[in-house]
């Protein structure tokens, strides 16, 4: 930590892209965050979506995986990235609800599947990931180095 990073806390259904070196942090449960980093320009961005697919009714916001990933890639391309320089890291998609054994909504699982599908379709390789499981996650993404620091959160009982 020699550099003084600017910080950004990423809220659910939003996304963040910057040319400046930033550290972007977020907290994930069944949500999924995709960090996309440009190897050539050393810039990156992150999204944080809650549900896999847009239902066509609400505003087409990055609350939905298919929209969030497309918009993130679009923003990076608009900043001058080339598609072939992009790499992705994906996190989250935990199974947070008690007693959701297969019969549940499997939101985490479906969120992850959507990410793999869209990234594969775009030809962006997933170079690292930590998904699934039963716990939440805290992640910090450094947009200049592409490094992600990741920690599991202990479940709190309310």
């Amino acid at each position, binding site marked *: 930590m020699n550099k003084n990073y600017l910080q950004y*806390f990423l809220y659910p259904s939003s996304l963040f892209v910057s040319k400046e070196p930033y550290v972007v*942090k977020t907290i994930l449960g069944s949500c999924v965050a995709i960090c996309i980093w440009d190897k050539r320009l050393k810039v990156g961005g992150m999204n944080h979506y809650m549900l896999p697919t847009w239902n066509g009714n609400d505003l087409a916001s990055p609350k939905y995986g298919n929209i969030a990933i497309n918009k993130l890639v679009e923003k990076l391309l608009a900043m001058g990235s080339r598609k072939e320089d992009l790499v992705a890291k994906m996190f989250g998609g935990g199974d947070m609800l008690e007693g959701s054994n297969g019969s549940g909504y499997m939101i985490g699982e479906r969120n992850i599947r959507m990410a793999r599908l869209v990234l594969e379709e775009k030809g962006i390789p997933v170079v690292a990931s930590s998904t699934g499981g039963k716990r939440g996650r805290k992640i910090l993404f450094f947009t200049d180095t592409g490094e992600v620091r990741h920690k599991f959160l202990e479940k709190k009982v309310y």
Partner: protein
Amino acid sequence: MSNLSDRQLLKELKIRLEASKKAREELQTLSKEYQEVSGKLSESEALKSHFISNISNEIVNPFTSILGLSKAILSVEKNDWKKVVSMVALIHSEAFNLDFQLKNIFVAAKIEAGEIAPNITKVNIRSLIQNVIDSFNIVSRKMGIIIDLQYNVEYGFGKNLYFKSDSEKLKLILSNLINNALKYSYKDSKIIIKVSIEDDILQIAVQDFGTGISEKNQKIIFERFKRLDSGINSINRGHGLGLSITKALLDVLDGDITIDSKKGEGSTFSISLPEAKNMIEGFSGEGNDIFFDDDDEIF
């Protein structure tokens, strides 16, 4: 693999058949899903083009009236000042409407771009609600509608409740609800706004005695661009974004909205909004702290 017994062969075949059956089933559900999505998409596209024609009316009409009215004012004789007052009132209401609709559209664009984050401050709930009501004063007076604020919060500093939330978003949420209530009310009626707080959850209910919404339609009013009276002859103006924005904003603030309505008797829109916490799982949203733990994994 060369020498399989009949039994093994049968077993293997069975497994493969089963697998292909499963794959086919999966394909069927997927194609069904795909059809649904593509149906929705085309519907959405139709709504969008409808929206564009709505919105151009929304923007062009007020501008035309503002331009026309101000031109008329410029040519008014000096002793005719009474005429001017009424024209200025019209200009004001057109400009107010324009400003409100534009705010909505810009917020919708921001939500869709993912550039929306709560901006939490301590909000004086009472004065915020009063301000929003006051901003609709001219419209409500013209329609003869009384807006009755029932403020049922007993505690707080001089009965002023300071509540951690996002004031701009809350203002827009309330404006949309009140605007709708006014729009669908009959002349010379009233609107009741009830405010209460329970367990750090703020409850605001906006009740009107207007046209009401049938049960079937209650489900679709939150969808974007959807308007119940979207015919070309519809009396009411609007772009059909208000409630979907309201819902998306409440999403950002962790809140919720419910409707209680009967056709012909009016509707009540109730929002519940939890007090915002600055801390999210041990670290603040905007503080300058980064904690590096030794047990951080690095990817």
